[in-house]
């Protein structure tokens, strides 16, 4: 899992049936000093996150299936929590 910021939403009318009716958000991983910033990725929202929220993102298929309560399918990136705070150095 990684920490990220919700920076947008993605609209896609045509998508795999497994993704039907899922809210797709654009999440940008929090920058790590001295490392290149990875591009923003698309995550399925399971916690009703909004733009600007700091979130916890899981990037693994089995986690995604569990959280979305679906059989395994072509989804692996899911927002699984809204972060209130983190304590300590990242």
């Amino acid at each position, binding site marked *: 899992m990684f920490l990220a910021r919700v920076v947008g939403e993605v609209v896609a009318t045509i*998508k*795999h049936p497994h993704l039907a009716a899922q809210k797709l958000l654009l999440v940008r991983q929090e920058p790590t000093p001295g490392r290149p910033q990875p*591009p923003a990725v*698309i995550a399925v929202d399971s916690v009703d996150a909004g733009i600007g929220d*700091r979130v916890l993102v899981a990037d693994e298929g089995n986690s995604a299936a569990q959280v979305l309560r679906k059989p395994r399918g*072509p989804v*692996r*990136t899911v927002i699984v929590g809204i972060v209130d705070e983190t304590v300590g150095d990242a």
Partner: protein
Amino acid sequence: MNFARVVGTVVCTEKVRAWKGSRLLLVQPTDSAGEPTPARPLAAVDLVSAAPGQLVFYVRGREAATALADPENPADAAIVGLVDHVRETPVGAR
């Protein structure tokens, strides 16, 4: 899931049986604005009838194989959506 742009088609007459009837496309990973990233192009199974030049999103890894009807196949990248648009809101770091 990551963004990519369709840059070509891969034609294989002989291929894994589970891929029969599926197209393989060549995609260049991009950022959310559609600008290419340094990542190398990938061959991906197409599930959404994407066209050359189109901005799409794809899933990588084991989950890609589950996009097909027969999940017992060796796909490690699958195009699962066509991007209509991305609404990106600048968010100030807190």
